[in-house]
């Protein structure tokens, strides 16, 4: 446990000693701001129309939850898909390339402590990003009252989905010493898991249901609408545990391959 904390602290603070973290935060906030502004502006146009003509046009809906929060968080989830590979690609790859991996693995620290330390450090950094997006609901709350339960459920969904992406990233990073391959592969794998649900209509009903259930975005949609399903939570947890378990097996097999 002590080792985990030590490693977690080092990994987390190391994010901030390199420019990567600041680049990621900057890009993330720029994109989040862009999406928020668009959604917010569109919402105000729609609500003006409603006020003047008394008719509903467009699909935005007329309350801030459906008109702003839900679409905003859906957009954020796409940004997250793009940025998480950048957070996790260094995790093991950089250590393998620099040789510090050899040093790390010869300290009296258990493999699972290493994996968890790296996973939670990346997750904590991701948590910082998500916390920063709270500015936008805060801005909305100046003008209208927001539904707090929906916001909380949506954030929980974002955190769980991000954690799943991070787990994929950590696994892939442990497979290669090349950061670019790690980043690219992570993005590809996450995207495929994200879009699996699209094949639902083409596949046979049985397989379609399975694909839909496997899709990462499918479960997030429930969260973003304010529905917290045990099923969705279990899905993310299973997914994360499987990825981390595979990482652990990979570290173990490294010892045999040398």
């Amino acid at each position, binding site marked *: 446990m002590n080792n985990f904390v*030590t490693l977690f602290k080092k990994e987390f603070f*190391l994010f901030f000693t390199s420019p990567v973290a600041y680049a990621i935060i900057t890009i993330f906030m720029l994109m989040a701001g862009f999406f928020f502004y668009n959604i917010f502006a569109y919402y105000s146009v729609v609500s003006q129309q409603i006020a003047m003509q008394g008719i509903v046009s467009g699909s935005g809906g007329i309350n801030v939850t459906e008109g702003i929060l839900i679409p905003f968080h859906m957009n954020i989830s796409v940004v997250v898909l793009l940025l998480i590979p950048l957070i996790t690609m260094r995790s093991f790859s950089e250590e393998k390339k620099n040789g*510090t991996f*050899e*040093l790390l693995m*010869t300290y009296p620290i258990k493999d699972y402590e290493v994996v968890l330390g790296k996973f939670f450090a990346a997750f904590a950094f991701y948590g910082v990003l998500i916390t920063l997006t709270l500015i936008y609901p805060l801005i909305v709350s100046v003008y209208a009252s927001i539904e707090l339960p929906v916001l909380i459920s949506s954030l929980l969904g974002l955190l769980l989905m991000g954690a799943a992406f991070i787990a994929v990233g950590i696994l892939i990073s442990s497979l290669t010493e090349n950061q670019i391959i790690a980043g690219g592969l992570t993005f590809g794998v996450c995207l495929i898991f994200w879009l699996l649900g699209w094949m639902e209509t083409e596949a046979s009903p049985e397989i379609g249901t399975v694909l839909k259930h496997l899709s990462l975005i499918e479960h997030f949609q429930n969260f973003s609408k304010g529905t917290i399903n045990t099923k969705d939570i279990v899905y993310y947890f299973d997914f994360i545990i499987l990825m981390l378990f595979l990482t652990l097996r990979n570290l173990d097999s490294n010892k045999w*391959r040398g």
Partner: protein
Amino acid sequence: MIRVSDLSKQYGALKAIDQVNFHVEKGEIVGFLGPNGAGKSTTMKILTCFTQPTSGSVNIAGFDAFNDSIEVRKRIGYLPENTPLYEEMTPRSLLRFIAGLKGVPTKEQNKKVEEVISLFGIAKFSGKLIKYISKGQKQRVGIAQAMIGEPEILILDEPTVGLDPKQIHEIRDIIKNMQGKRTVILSTHILPEVSMTCQRILIINKGKIVTEESTVNLMSRFHSHNIFEIEIDGDEKKVQSVLRDVKNILRIDVKEKSNDQRNIYEIETEKNIDNRREISHAVVHNGLGLLSFKTVSRSLEDIFLELVTDEKEAEVKDE
């Protein structure tokens, strides 16, 4: 303290080490010597539990490196080849991090870190990022990180590579001072280093231990070959013929020619026979001037080359 039995490691078709056996007693400093690619680093990686052997076992301080790897790792300080360190940390924060991982109690961490910082002269650059410090400074941080937590066993893979002569001297002194206190295995391909710091030498070549002997023994064993450097004043042909008449001389070479017939000859004589008296007698009684007579001691370098090349020749014959 360290017992290695029948250790083999195979990478695909390549046998990195093959049936290696050796043991190291507590407090001993052992030099692990071999050309590049001989299997030094592989052996060290197995000793430090980074890699698992294909077969064979390693027992360190009573613990099996495979089954009790955490216990083994607690007792080992390791400096891998090329000194990999976290480039984006400062030496001080790195050492603190490692002290934490090695289980130094939080209260003592600061004290222990400051201790190694002053011991290895790291204070001056302890606040700089490691990517900006020099190779020699990195090397010192590398050894410091291995020493932190006071492990019983130190495994150092080429600890003096890239250091300037003064730093090499310092590092060697530090290692020498550990004699009796800590068990040290250090690998190198620099021979004087081994003869200066180690009590015992393991020579490894092509994955096999070629020789395992104390430094003193190894040196004396090879001194039994007698080589002399003699400066003689006189006609070269005459000198050659005179010397050829002396018994037990194997080889006569002119080492340095000079214009005034004062040449330096190198003479190799039969093992274990001291015929210096006969040589000098023959020279003087034939009217030649004996200007100087010197016994040449063979360096470890020659011994090493001989062991390693012998091995090669033997293999060629096998084929």
